[in-house]
């Protein structure tokens, strides 16, 4: 009878150990899965931020090109002639400032 009690006690310890082991294993599994999901989400977030960064860089680039286009002599001369009515000065109208 006494032996039986000892046997049951030792089985109980083994069960607890197994449950603990499985719990730790499952916890690790969930943490790992959570980390992977977070990693994937962060990946999407980085990807989206990179896209946004790229869009802004492209916008900056396009604006600088637009600025260059607006400065083009062809356009300025056209505005000067057609909108403001400027003409190339005659030699006697040119004064070189020393």
């Amino acid at each position, binding site marked *: 009878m006494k032996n039986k009690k000892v046997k049951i006690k030792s089985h109980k310890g083994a069960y607890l150990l197994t449950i603990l082991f499985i719990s730790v294993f499952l916890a690790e599994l969930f943490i790992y899965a959570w980390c992977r999901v977070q990693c*994937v989400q962060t990946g999407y977030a980085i*990807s989206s931020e990179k896209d946004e960064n*790229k869009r802004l860089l492209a916008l900056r680039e396009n604006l600088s*090109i637009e600025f260059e286009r607006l400065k*083009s002599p062809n356009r300025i001369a056209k505005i000067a002639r057609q909108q403001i009515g400027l003409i190339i000065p005659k030699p006697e109208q040119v004064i070189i400032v020393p």
Partner: protein
Amino acid sequence: MKTIDRKYIGRRIHVLGAFFCFLFAVIGVKAIQLQVFECKNLSEKAADEYERSILSAGKRGIIYDRKLNELAVSIHASSIAAVPSQIACPKTAAKLMSAILDIDKKELEERLSRKNSFIWVKRQISPQRVEAIKALGLKGIEVIPEFSRFYPNKTLAAQALGFSGIDSRGLEGIEFFYNDDIEGTSNKYKIMKDALGRGFDREEWTEDQKKANNLVLTIDRTIQYITDEALKDATLNNQAKAGMAVVMVPDTGEILAIAHYPEFNPNAFTKFKRDAWRNKAITDSFEPGSTMKIFLAAAAMEFGYCSPNTIFFCENGEYRIGKNIVHDTHPHDWMSLQQIIKFSSNIGAVKVAEMTGKKSLYKTLSAFGFGEKTGIDAPGETPGSLTDYRKWTEIDTGTIAFGQGVSVSAIQLTTALCAIANGGILMKPYIAKSVIDPDGNVIKDLTPKKGKRIITQKTANDITTMMHSVVTEGGTGVNAALDNYRVCGKTGTAQKVINGRYSEKAFIASFAGFAPQKDPAIAVLVVIDEPLEKQHHGGAVAAPAFGRIVYETLNYMAIKPDDLMIVSLHNGKDR
């Protein structure tokens, strides 16, 4: 019974335990086989499913003018690619995309049905189209970021700049010649895909990694514009076939402008004829006509055969050389060398050439660079044509004296002209000044070495004086004269060779000169191809365009007029 059951339960447990151990062992062995022995193959196989690498051309460097205004830039542009194996229904995909991309539906369907692992659908499309394609959310359709070349000034200096192709490689002009200096390094662009085909954790280049070196040209955007406009007007007003003009700095050989008409837009180069792409000022040669007389005069004076005042009998308008008769536009009797240049007498030129001799004339023309390439930094340069003097007949010597029977490129003629303007030193012409890194530091200086002296300062001065007389009253180039700058120049009118014979109807009119006379800041050549027959002389067709280019350019450069009109800002009496 209960004892027997218990006994068997223990055995069953052991048998089941052993069975599961066996199964775990099998799984373990399989795991080792997959993870250790077949790891490499399987990883590659898996990677093929979710990773894709695409080689993309890097961002090309910027091409600047001499004042660091952008002439050519690379901008972000997206291209559409497809992985046919991933497309569920090529027919539907083709139907949806063909309308957006403006591609024939059947052709697109055929392409999407191919067994290729990767195909380009359309390269470098507009952002609106990219968004529309993205919105379709088609699996197997990729949006690949690339770079597209853009020329903000459109037609300005287009032939000199050239253009680059869809793969960001220079195909023409400066873009081609300096391709290695401004080409961006290629990128391996890796895309990771999830099960839904969404782009995930892209590995892309960063802006810093891909910045290529930039190129600074000698061309000035404003002077180029002035030249373009003057040339365009001269060509259109004279109903000419084409025109070209070159502006150069005599002391250094820097090209300030190279203009061509008809023009072309490098942003849409495929819409223009190939002929319009060529930098004809460098690649094509033509018979220069009377502009060659200044080099004849240089030969005669340099070898001591005559001075500006040496007189020649000009045969009253007709001079026979063997079977051929040389004519002058207006008959002249006795004329000095200076007058021969001023009135552009062909007979006078023949007489000077006869006095100078073939050998001396050939030597001088060769020294000025005719018959060989100038070495300018642009592709496809022509050496022109100047045959060996030992092969010249009597009539050849005569015609070469007034610029027929010899062919030159516009760049050769302008370079030779610069040698007279700068006092006798032949400079090497160049278009690119330096290669700079993205921070603006010069990493390659492209300025050529000092030129070589080919005529004495005195000869150069004498020719300069003669050239000034051309634009004075009675001279052939009076239309090039300016009120506030002393201009030196020479007109040229040459018959074109059509089907092996000199045409009586097709001419090349030109004007070559520089200003101001005292310290020339620019040398300019204007060439008009096939102007109206009625008014085809260089003095009538090209000289006014020359005058306009010189006047506006010198004003822009703030060069003091020869007859200085300085007014004090304080009294303002002349304002």
